[in-house]
């Protein structure tokens, strides 16, 4: 099961990178996220899996798709000679990075002290319940902070996406009616 | 370190903030008159309050007076510790006095952004007064930096054509120095280990000569740049030339004194051994400053620049006197700080007045002004004479004391510095002659108005003080007596304690305590080691080693305070 999901995840991720059309990339990304959610279920983190599907695959990706459709741009084939070496360099770097990380983690991983939430206990209490309780007790402050962060992001996004910059005196009508 | 229970200093320091608050409610465009009035009134009240400070000051005590001690940032041991002694009293007075005049001087000079200008002026006053009164190093640093910003704005916004360059130069130079000072302050804080920035706590610190040297250096740059001591002076002419009149006045009269005050308040008492070892270097720099400033001033074409370079020269005298470490030298340099504030401040005012009328400061654009503006010329004459140290006016008393002090410390320095006095006369007279004497050659000068009542009102108090200090300096010297005496004595003790071989303490069994007192008071230098000076050497050393009656008697006579007039009836 792990292997199947892993293949889906890796394959979909690769397609995201490889696809020329952003729309397809986005769709493949959704697939990757679903695969990831499967992995989460395997790891007994049901609530996380649900969140992954709902928020990532649902909300965020819809937003992506929406923007992609809105802009409707294709990958133009601009001259890339200038940046070719950079691409190559990037690829090599990536591979080296991967190699390094993989070497590090592939061997025996010694784990630190174990926490209280063994799988059994988690199954007893219910993953979502524990998660929620912790979130609203120990991590309450951080939780609130993230809410503020989201609010700020929301306002920021709204401000940025406005047609006219904030506070600018109204330009002549002709300019403002210019199509995007 | 006690709280005297009086809040006078706090009131004085922060009264201008009240003015700022009032100004904030006024409309910058429509209520210019009210803005000026509020600023003037604030500074005037502040000045009157400092007069109260003066009358209540106990001249006989060397201790800090009007002390205020409140915790501020307790976790760091920073306290809100204020207090003044004879050294800062005069400078506080000078500050409030000159600020009033500076506000008056900007009455018609500044027409744009009057409100912001006055706010900057008042904030500047807060910073300056605070720096003079602070007895906590941290507090001092806060005020020190607080002055910097309004001054930067004054130059940068209301200055001349190259104001931005000048302002940035000013800012960078001063900032570079003060950062080092901050490092020094923090270092002292940790060394003291008392969790206290209080000056009095740090004073009790016994530092090794080596440490003293490094700390002295850290403070030195901050103060030397501010003074400015010779190689650090190039920001000064630019800043002066570009600053608005009142800015130049404040800059010359008070901000520069921050540096010399810093030496006197912090560097010398905290690091006496380093001060001693650095004294030759600093004296030489001061000397170079005296001669160099004078020579360069001589060839200037811009009156304001000339005055700026003359500042370099005059402050060289101040530094020279201070690093003579004896009563006359230090007291003279303290008085000279005030003198320089008055006369150079007045010179800038005068240049500003003529600039306001003619919009030029080039010497060659003037000539023959006496005929056209006699009152202006008369004021100019008196101030110029005060600046070149004519006896009977203030400059002489300070210069004379400094030179007497310097002469006792090192004769060669005094001789060279005296050449500076000649040069001082040369450049000032030459400039004066080209501006005031002769016939009017430039037609633009023909329609010149003479001073109006406001301008006369600005200059008259200065002239009165100039004559007052010149004729009866005791008014201003006496309050400083006790504090300077303690400062010099402290320095001498530290130096004597560290290097007994250079001491001239009497080994012949004479009363040691008496000798120490004499040493402390007269600040007699150790006998020179140079053979050619031996025959001229101060007889003090002989007087102390041999207890021969006649010199002894003489010395006793000398050291009775206030034994000026000889016993009557000596015929």
């Amino acid at each position, binding site marked *: 099961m792990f292997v199947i999901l892993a293949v889906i995840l890796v394959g979909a991720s690769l397609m995201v990178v490889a696809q020329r059309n952003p729309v397809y990339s986005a769709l493949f990304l959704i697939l990757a996220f679903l695969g990831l959610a499967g992995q989460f279920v395997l790891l007994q983190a049901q609530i996380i899996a649900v969140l992954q599907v709902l928020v990532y695959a649902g909300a965020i990706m819809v937003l992506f798709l929406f923007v992609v459709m809105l802009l409707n741009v294709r990958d133009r084939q601009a001259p890339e000679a200038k940046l070719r070496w950079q691409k190559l360099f990037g690829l090599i770097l990536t591979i080296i990075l991967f190699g390094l990380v993989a070497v590090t983690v592939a061997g025996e991983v010694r784990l630190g002290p174990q926490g209280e939430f063994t799988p059994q206990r988690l199954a007893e209490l219910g993953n979502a319940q524990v998660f929620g309780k912790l979130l609203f007790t120990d991590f309450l402050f951080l939780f609130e902070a993230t809410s503020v962060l989201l609010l700020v992001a929301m306002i920021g996004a709204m401000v940025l996406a406005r047609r006219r910059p904030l506070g600018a005196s109204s330009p002549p009508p002709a300019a403002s009616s210019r199509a995007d | 370190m006690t709280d005297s229970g009086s809040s006078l200093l706090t009131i004085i320091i922060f009264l201008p903030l009240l003015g700022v608050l009032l100004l904030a409610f006024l409309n910058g465009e429509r209520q210019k008159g009210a803005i000026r009035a509020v600023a003037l009134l604030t500074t005037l009240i502040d000045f009157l309050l400092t007069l109260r400070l003066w009358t209540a000051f106990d001249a006989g005590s060397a201790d800090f007076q009007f002390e205020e001690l409140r915790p501020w940032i307790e976790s760091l041991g920073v306290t809100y510790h204020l207090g003044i002694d004879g050294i800062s009293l005069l400078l506080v007075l000078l500050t409030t006095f000159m600020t009033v005049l500076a506000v008056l001087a900007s009455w018609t000079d500044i027409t744009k952004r009057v409100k912001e200008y006055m706010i900057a002026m008042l904030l500047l006053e807060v910073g300056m007064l605070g720096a003079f009164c602070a007895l906590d190093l941290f507090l001092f640093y806060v005020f020190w930096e607080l002055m910097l910003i309004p001054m930067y704005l004054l130059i940068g916004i209301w200055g001349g054509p190259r104001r931005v360059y000048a302002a940035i130069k000013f800012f960078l130079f001063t900032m570079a120095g003060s950062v080092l000072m901050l490092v020094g302050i923090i270092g002292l804080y940790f060394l003291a280990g008392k969790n206290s920035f209080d000056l009095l706590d740090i004073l009790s610190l016994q530092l090794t000569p080596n440490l003293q040297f490094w700390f002295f250096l850290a403070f030195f740059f901050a103060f030397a740049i501010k003074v400015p001591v010779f190689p650090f002076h190039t920001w000064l002419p630019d800043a002066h030339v570009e600053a608005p009149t009142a800015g130049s006045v404040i800059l010359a009269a008070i901000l520069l004194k921050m540096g010399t005050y810093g030496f006197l308040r912090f560097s010398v008492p905290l690091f006496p051994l380093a001060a001693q070892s650095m004294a030759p270097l600093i004296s030489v720099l001061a000397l170079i400053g005296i001669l160099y400033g004078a020579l360069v001033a001589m060839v200037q074409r811009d009156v304001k620049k000339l005055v700026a370079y003359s500042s370099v020269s005059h402050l060289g005298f101040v530094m020279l006197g201070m690093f003579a470490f004896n009563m006359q030298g230090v007291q003279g340099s303290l008085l000279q700080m005030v003198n320089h504030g008055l006369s150079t401040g007045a010179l800038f005012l005068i240049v500003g007045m003529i600039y306001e009328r003619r919009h030029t400061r080039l010497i060659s654009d003037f000539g023959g002004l006496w005929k056209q503006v006699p009152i202006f010329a008369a004021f100019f004459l008196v101030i110029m004479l005060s600046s070149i140290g004519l006896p009977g006016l203030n400059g002489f008393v300070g210069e004379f004391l400094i030179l007497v002090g310097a002469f006792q410390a090192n004769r060669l320095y005094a001789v060279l510095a005296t050449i500076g006095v*000649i040069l001082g006369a040369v450049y000032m007279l030459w400039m004066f002659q080209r501006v005031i004497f002769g016939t009017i050659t430039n037609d633009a000068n023909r329609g010149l108005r003479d001073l109006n009542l406001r301008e006369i009102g600005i200059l008259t108090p200065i002239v009165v003080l100039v004559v007052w200090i010149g004729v009866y300096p005791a008014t201003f010297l006496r309050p400083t007596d006790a504090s300077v005496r303690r400062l010099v004595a402290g320095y001498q003790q530290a130096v004597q304690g560290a290097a007994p071989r250079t001491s001239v303490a009497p080994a012949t069994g004479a009363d040691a305590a008496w000798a120490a007192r004499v040493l402390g008071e007269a600040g007699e230098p150790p006998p020179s080691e140079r053979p050619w000076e031996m*025959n001229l050497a101060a007889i003090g050393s002989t007087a102390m080693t041999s207890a021969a009656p006649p010199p002894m008697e003489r010395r006793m006579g000398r050291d009775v305070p206030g034994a000026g*007039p000889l016993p009557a009836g000596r015929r």
Partner: protein
Amino acid sequence: MLDLAWLMLALPLLGVFLNLFVTGRMSERGIGWLASAVVGLALLVAVGAFLALLKLPPQQRHIELNVYTWIASGSLSAGFGLLVDQLSIIMALVVTGVGFIIHVYSIGYMHGDPGFRRYFVYLNLFIFSMLILVLANNFLLLFVGWEGVGLCSYLLIGFWYERKSAADAGKKAFIVNRVGDFGFLLAIFLIFALFGSLDFTTVFSKAPQLVQSGVVSGAAITAITLLLFVGATGKSAQLPLYVWLPDAMEGPTPVSALIHAATMVTAGVYMVVRTSALFALAPLSLTVVAGIGLATAFFAATMGLVQTDIKRVLAYSTVSQLGYMFLACGVGAFTAAIFHLMTHAFFKSLLFLGSGSVIHALGGEQDLRRMGGLFSKLRTTGITFWIGALAIAGIFPFAGFFSKDEILWETLQESLFLWAVAAFTAFLTALYMFRLIYLTFHGPSRVSAERAAHIHESPKVMTRPLVVLAVLSILGGFVGLPLIQGGNLFKSFLEPVLARAPLAHGAAAAEAGHAAIGFELFMMIVSLAIAVAGLVMARRFFLQRPELAQRAAEVNAWLYRLLCGKYFVDEAYDLLVVRPVKQLGTILWRGFDVLVIDGIANGAADLIRGASGALRRLQTGYVKSYAVTMVLGAMLLVLYFVMR
């Protein structure tokens, strides 16, 4: 009366303030008479003090009045104190007396000048400063007066400030004086360092014993006295600092009479005499003083010989006579110096005022070549001028004879060579003085026609002072009758002040001299003959056979040019001192300040800018490059952890 000595100072100061602030709308006469009155009253006080002093026994004629402590710092304490003794009272009498006369004269001379009030303010201020100078009881206060008179001199020379030459001359006077003050100041420092006091009484009484006990070395005393003398050369226009005095003639003539002949320029002599107690301890200094004095007397006389400006002739004559006074000091004849100072004050101010009267009559003409034959038209002026000239030339029985003869006599005691030069100078003095007289008052008139029409004798307010001074020039000498034992009232009056200074030499010689009355009489006749010779020669060269003078000038052309060019001293100073200093200033400013210091500051800025410029290249703006860099960084971090 003696307790009121401070009134002498207060009165002129009062005059200054009244004329500065109160008499704004007063008439010219009112201002002038007010200013004169305060000086006149001061004169009365001085006379009163003098009489009071005479009543005291000679050893008690030393009164000190302490007004207040001026500067007190540590062990330094300088008071504002007055000292009235024989020396200062004589000086005070001369200052107030001549001052009063010249004030009165000025009312006429300055009539109609737009700066009338300013003039009298300066003049009163000058009297005030001069009295501080002579009455001070310590070195510092003396210096105050010293600088004060220098200031007044500066202001009065440049009184007609619209004339560039006048303003230049004022500045020159002040600056040259400052050079002298440099020495004076250093002397003060040294005195304070050695004696711990600046009071005359203390210093003078202590000096001999300290030197004897070896506490203060003789070299130190020599240094002090030489430095003091540097100050004196500045103020009293001696070599090499005399250059300002001839130029100072740009001021109004009464000013030249008062300041640059009678009083201020003699301050140096006064100071040397005042400090005679110190000079007496330094034989080397005395030799220098005598040498400089004599050299000045001689060179100034030669220069006076060829001047064509009436006032400049008198100016060089003043320099020359001052040289005589220093010569007297140098040979230890301090009383003779003061004696000559006094008589010189009378006859030289007379001569200046006379020349002022001539200039006034000719409507501002000062060139001798455009004068001549004025005696008939300006009778009072002419006669009094003659008296003055006879006095300065040293012809019996005029005042100058007595004083100059005393100096020559004392010099002869000292050295034959000094005497010879001094005597030759006396001859030159007579020569140039009578040249002046003949060119001005006698011979054919060379006055331009339109000026000739206006020639008129000066008003009474101007001629009366001339008469008074003429009388003084005749009688002034008799207070110091030589030969007769006890006849020299002046000397015996003054001696106690100086007696406390045991003269190293000279005094004893003078005593010996009194014995040889016959020899002294002979020497008097010799000096008289020298003066008459000068007169006769002047008469021949400049009145009877003017072409002779012409020829003499042609024969010795180079000498003549040298003299006319005043030995080119001014040019030399300009070349050697003024210009290099200015150039140094420019070099320091343009070269050092702008290039080096700002160069270092700007260089540091450039370095940072350069470095940041290099770093700027990294900032390509491409997100990709940033990403690559980040990945690279991450990789390195991982590498670090792995390798660790």
